[in-house]
């Protein structure tokens, strides 16, 4: 492997940061240069991600085997407490890395319309991309935590400065919720650090892979009550990010107030970090507790599906509707994960990937109409289908993908979740399947109110979707369709790792 291949993860993570630093050096008034630098700095990681997609060895599992990770880089960072720069990719992280690279690039392009303080916006955005990438590649808990927290700052400013009318409230609410969750994670991290020892060196370590080896745990941390508390600490930290009911209340505010591209990233990537964290950290380190809490997790998933859908139905704001649809869709991930079957786990990961694509489309589309009409009231439109047929085509596509129409990625993911979890939680899955009806209902109802029926004369001259916007949407649409028809491309990428994860968790029963 050449230099680029062996350092591919580091490059993907830090090139955006470098781009951000460059942007700060661009002289005043050169907005086009800023946009150009941002586009390049987010396009290179995308190219690298595509390269990674091709050279990734799909037979290696990763998860708890250090030698089965790919593109590994491991350097000592702070020797006296044994913090390492330890990164690598496996089947759990690769789809997320791809998603992050793609959505970040599209979001940069989608943000070209920003007029206010574009320099700060782009610099912060690129910092955010570094944080997201870093979170998905880190295999050292400390490193993971640092990247996880680094995301908060740019997100806070991006919502707070460039957001909608209630931006301050939304920004601080997002920040406080996530910080409260992550300090719990910090405590768990330190507790793990002091109560495990690396058998090879006899020292404490932050390596997640060592934590997964139960033999490194000392007697204190083997106690069942202790493990429950630690697991809950992690779970709450991740659940806030997902967000799971009842920790979801930051999400509608943040999504609604954030500028379009930031909503895309928030829903497309940040929410997945919660479920990713569970797969990467909670499940393999505390498999016994994961099994113990499987049913409550599944119930929370169901609540998310149905409650999210019902809330979405009640919204009058299109963006809020999409935001609640995310709450609903993330419930499927949890249900699939809680089943602890290979199919359910793959379904959950698939849903993470697919929802990233679909929800990104939805937020872009909502942004398009908001840019033109300057409001998002579902009842404030009507009959737009006649005026903007191409736009309507896109949004219909996205809505159908979101409600799980066969042939699109969402359907595949949801079916896998159902098939994987049905043998385990029969009643719950039946209830969840009923939830699909609500999901379909709010989508169709919104579609009908906005695009069908008599034309609202106020919008008779509404501008059609432009080329730049189509540039953002088309790749997503193609991928949604492609994955819907031929899901094996994505499934092959992650199945070996996820099967191993399930085996690891199941081994304790």
């Amino acid at each position: 492997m050449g230099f680029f291949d062996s350092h591919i993860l580091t490059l993907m993570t830090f090139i955006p940061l470098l781009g951000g630093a460059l942007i700060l050096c661009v002289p005043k008034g050169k907005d086009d240069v800023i946009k150009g630098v941002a586009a390049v700095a987010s396009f290179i990681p995308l190219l690298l991600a595509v390269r990674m997609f091709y050279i990734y060895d799909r037979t290696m599992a990763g998860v708890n085997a250090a030698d089965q990770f790919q593109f590994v880089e491991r350097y000592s960072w702070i020797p006296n407490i044994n913090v390492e720069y330890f990164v690598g990719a496996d089947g759990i992280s690769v789809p997320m890395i791809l998603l992050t690279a793609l959505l970040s690039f599209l979001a940069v392009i989608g943000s070209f319309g920003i007029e206010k303080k574009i320099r700060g916006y782009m610099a912060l955005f690129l910092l955010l991309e570094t944080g997201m990438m870093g979170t998905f590649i880190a295999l050292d808990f400390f490193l993971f935590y640092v990247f996880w927290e680094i995301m908060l700052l740019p997100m806070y400013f991006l919502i707070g400065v460039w957001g909608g009318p209630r931006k301050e409230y939304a920004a601080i609410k997002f920040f406080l919720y996530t910080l409260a969750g992550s300090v719990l994670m910090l405590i768990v991290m330190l507790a793990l650090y002091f109560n495990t020892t690396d058998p090879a060196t006899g020292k404490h370590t932050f390596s997640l892979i060592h934590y997964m080896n139960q033999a490194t745990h000392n007697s204190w941390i083997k106690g069942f009550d202790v493990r429950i508390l630690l697991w809950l600490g992690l779970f709450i930290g991740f659940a806030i990010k997902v967000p799971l009911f009842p920790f979801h209340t930051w999400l509608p505010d943040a999504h609604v107030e954030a500028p379009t591209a930031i909503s895309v990233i928030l829903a497309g990537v940040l929410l997945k970090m919660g479920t990713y964290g569970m797969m990467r950290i909670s499940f393999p380190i505390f498999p016994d507790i994961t099994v113990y809490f499987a049913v409550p997790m599944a119930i929370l998933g169901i609540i998310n599906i149905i409650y999210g859908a019902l809330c979405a139905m009640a919204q009058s704001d299109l963006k809020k509707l999409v935001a609640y649809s995310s709450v609903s869709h993330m419930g499927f991930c949890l249900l699939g994960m809680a089943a602890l079957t290979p199919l359910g786990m793959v379904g959950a990961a698939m849903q993470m990937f697919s929802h990233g694509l679909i929800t990104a489309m939805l937020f872009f589309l909502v942004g398009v109409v908001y840019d033109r009409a300057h409001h998002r009231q579902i009842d404030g439109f009507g009959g737009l289908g006649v005026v903007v047929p191409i736009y309507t085509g896109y949004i219909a596509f996205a809505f159908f993908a979101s409600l799980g129409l066969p042939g699109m990625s969402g359907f595949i993911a949801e079916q896998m979740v159902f098939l994987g979890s049905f043998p385990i939680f029969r009643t719950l899955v039946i209830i969840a399947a009923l939830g699909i009806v609500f999901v379909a209902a709010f989508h169709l109802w919104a579609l009908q109110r906005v695009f069908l029926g008599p034309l609202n004369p106020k919008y008779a001259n509404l501008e059609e979707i432009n080329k730049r916007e189509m540039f953002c949407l088309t790749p997503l649409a193609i991928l949604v369709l492609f994955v819907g028809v031929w899901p094996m491309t994505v499934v092959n990428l992650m199945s070996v790792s996820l099967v191993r994860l399930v085996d690891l968790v199941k081994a304790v029963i």
Partner: protein
Amino acid sequence: MLDNLASVGYFLPEFALTATILVLIVVRVATKDPQSVAFPFLSLVGIGLSILLASIVPAGEAKGTFEGMVAYDAFAVFFKVLTALAAVIVVFMSMDSREMEGRPQVEFYVFMLASLIGMFLLSASTDIVMLYLSFELVSIPSYLLAGYVKGKVQSTEAAMKYVVYGATASGSMIYGFSMLFGLTGSTQIGEIGKALATGNLPVVPLVLACVLVAAGFGYKIAAVPFHMWSPDVYEGAPTPATAFFSVAPKAAGFAVLIRFFYTVFAVSEPGSSVWRLSTEVDWTLLFAVLSAITMTVGNLVAIKQDNVKRLLAYSSIAHAGYMLMGFVLLTPAGIQAVLFYFVVYLFMNLGAFYVVLVVGNSCNGEDISDFRGLGTRAPFMAVSMAVFLFALTGIPPFSGFIGKLYLFAEVINRQIYWLVIIAALNSAVGLYYYARIVKSMFFDVPESTEAIAVPAIPRALLVLLVAPTLILGVYWEPVARIASNSIRMLAF
């Protein structure tokens, strides 16, 4: 024990400061200009010299110098350099302060240097008489600094409050000392420790004595419930003085707190965390509760503040609470965490005060609303302030996070989970009020959009304060090593 003459070689840093004070007074007599630039300049030279002399102690380390009054050990050197660095930064801050009508007069520097000598001695004292004297030497010039602005009512009120509280605290402390002396027959803290080790002393007076002494120290570090003076003093005193109070005396207070209790109570084997007397009184629990209350009260009250100086005063109470977490265990790792925290705290807290000073100079106010729109009016300053505030909150990649990490780590290692959970929740509370300032700077629309010019010197100084706040958040190994080498105390 070294006699006085043999000890002189160790006294060079203090000599340098004393000489500077004398030179300042002479120069004042010789010059016409009461606000001459020579005063801060000479102070800087003197403090710089004392840092140099303290950090490369020519005679090496020694205990029992001046007939057992002070110890020259790594621990003392650490706090000397730390407090002196704080003084250097404050001298720079003082050079342009609207409150003090430009540059302060010579008295300001003389008081500060005198207080600094007190801190040098306080962090090295191994005898309760010396400890008391240096405690007063820290305090008395501080009262004068707080009341430096003569015309301002708040400033005078601040000085008055400081005196009254200070007198009460030192009164209670010396009462405690007298009981300790009566019980053990020695003024040497090492000897007191040995007497306690025998275990046949009456418990009730002993506990009472320790509580009284702790109250005195608690006042100096502004721990709840001895914190009442600090918000008023911080708000009323001129900003450079406030910045000085928020770091230097607090550091010296922690130094003496740690040295006293560690020497007197901790069993001298390395790594042990057994408090003597712990059979009768659970000292760990007592101080852990004190720590939890201090951080919680500091943070909760800070939420309601509109004056940034007052807000930072409560925030520094909260930070004293965090640092007490490292103290409660009396373990080397805990002490190391406190030392490390002081290094990061020095830069982030002084940095925050510095921005307050510059904003106060140009906007005529210190309220959160005066920070409105700073993000567009003075972007560099606003970004620096945001860095300091987020570092104070304790989020990566800033130095404050690493400081908290070490503090949390030791408490978790000793499995006092309730304390660390309270501290963690406090961090989230802290974010709320720090973010209020950030919000005001970046999200709110300013009344005037006119750019605020930041002259070159403040700009350079800000860079010097921001840089360590950022760098220590990413690479802190050298400082951690210094901190772990500096826990060596020679008093037994």
